[in-house]
């Protein structure tokens, strides 16, 4: 079946790119995972419009994206509230909505969070590169021509019709995360926490850090009290693999939370954000305050299982919603 045109980009905003749940298995070639930063919101958006959880979505950063529907399409907008409007009316987030042919959808500002996810019922018809449709922005591959979307881009999909029947599906209110300007991120110490002083470890846990404007999809740079290394511990280490959420401390003692566009690093890591809190990293914006809290491995797994259990219950509820 031929793919049909779904939407056209009228204005792209500062950074809008196609992302799915990421590219895995190419770490030995230095290929990072890329993918949506807020995977929770991406999965929710896809489920609302009847897609597979791993379908690609547009990840919209800050504001500014405007698109036009080229035919009737089911859409869902989740994640940060970037004031989405259809034509001139506010659009409800976290629900499946039908954009009629000719309707426009625009993101007009930052009310809360930092990134919105736009799913199209039927997805984006794009080739996978190394098993993923995520855009690798630094090396320029994957997604749509390996670049952020730009004015005039037209996206296509197969079989839109079954998805139109998802109209009105909603995501449970109590499952929708709240994005504030002050964040509490749960961490587990390691792997090089023993190379920092006791005071250094306490500094990380007891100090608020401000998010720097130099942050991007590679990392969230923080500014605050310097984290002290042990005497005689050099600032860099022999390079090794890193994961999103790892908190590395370069020579100046200012922590950086690693995100998804890098797979190795040469600085010590004092702690790592737990998997359950990773989606929040996508909603932290420059100027926000970040606090870290130490939890046990058991707590980390327990929290993750609770979240997954709730997503599972939502999936089960979908059959009765429509």
């Amino acid at each position, binding site marked *: 079946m031929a793919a049909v045109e779904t939407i056209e980009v009228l204005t792209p905003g500062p950074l809008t790119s196609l992302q799915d749940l990421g590219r895995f298995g190419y*770490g030995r070639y230095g290929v990072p995972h890329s993918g949506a930063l807020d995977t929770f919101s991406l999965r929710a958006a896809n489920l609302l419009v009847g897609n597979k959880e791993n379908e690609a979505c547009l990840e919209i950063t800050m504001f500014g994206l405007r698109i036009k529907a080229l035919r009737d399409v089911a859409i869902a907008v989740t994640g940060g509230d970037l004031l989405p409007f259809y034509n001139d009316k506010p659009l409800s987030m976290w629900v499946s909505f039908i954009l009629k042919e000719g309707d426009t959808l625009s993101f007009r500002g930052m009310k809360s969070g930092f990134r919105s996810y736009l799913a199209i019922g039927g997805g984006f018809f794009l080739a996978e590169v190394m098993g993923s449709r995520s855009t690798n922005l630094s090396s320029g591959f994957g997604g749509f021509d390996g670049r952020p979307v730009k004015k005039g881009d037209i996206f296509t999909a197969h079989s839109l019709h079954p998805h139109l029947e998802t109209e009105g599906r909603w995501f449970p209110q109590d499952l929708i995360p709240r994005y504030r300007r002050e964040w509490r991120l749960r961490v*587990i110490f*390691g792997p090089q926490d023993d190379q920092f002083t006791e005071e250094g470890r306490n500094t990380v846990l007891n100090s608020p850090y401000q998010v720097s404007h130099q942050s991007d999809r590679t990392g969230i740079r923080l500014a605050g009290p310097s984290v002290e290394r042990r005497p005689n511990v050099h600032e860099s280490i022999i390079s090794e693999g890193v994961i999103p959420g790892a908190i590395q401390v370069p020579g100046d003692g200012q922590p950086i939370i690693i995100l998804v566009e890098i797979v190795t690093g040469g600085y010590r890591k004092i702690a790592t954000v737990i998997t359950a809190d990773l989606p929040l990293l996508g909603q932290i914006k420059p100027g926000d305050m970040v606090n870290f809290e130490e939890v046990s491995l058991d707590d980390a797994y327990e929290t993750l299982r609770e979240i997954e259990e709730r997503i599972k219950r939502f999936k089960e509820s979908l059959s009765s919603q429509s």
Partner: protein
Amino acid sequence: MGDRSLLVELGDEISPEVNRRVREFYVILLENPIEGLLEIVPAYRSLLIIYDPLKLDLVMIKNRMDDLQKKIGEIQIPEPKTLEIPVVYGGEYGPDMEWVSQYHNISVDEVIQLHTGTTYQVYMIGFMPGFPYLGELPEGLATPRRETPRTVIPQGSVAIAQRQTGIYPVESPGGWQILGRTPLKLFNPLHSPPTLLEMGDLVRFFSIGEKEFKQWQQ
């Protein structure tokens, strides 16, 4: 590291022996697939094992890794390729060449002789897709990183830092000292494998002129 990865450390130094153990362990992991294992990032002296925390937990993965490590030394790994890489040294292609030669108080030709006179091993691919960490530079060429990193380094730039040399596969920011540029393409996302060099490969550089560089590019 965290609740979904384990750093397996097989030594604490940069050496061909330790790196060979890393490559052996990588092959062992490929031959013994583990359900729920998402990614392996092999590096100089370690492998980062990333797993799905809904399918595996740290104790399970740690036990499995301890078991599999016993196989190191018992298996065959593929023989490394040897590649010769053409480089235009100095001038606009190697903007840090002058600084490096002055830093070591040797001539530009001597820098080139030192850089081309060594067989390097690819210790790992990292930092960005296809970037090879090659070691080790001769002692006489060990150079600190630039104090201020460059915001734009052209694709193919051949650079050095401390006892390492590397090649930027695509245009990017970076802090290494640039000696020259190769016309070879180090990363192609549509090829399999996507990188020209793989961990364990051996590399020698040779000097070419600007004219040959341009011919090579075509």
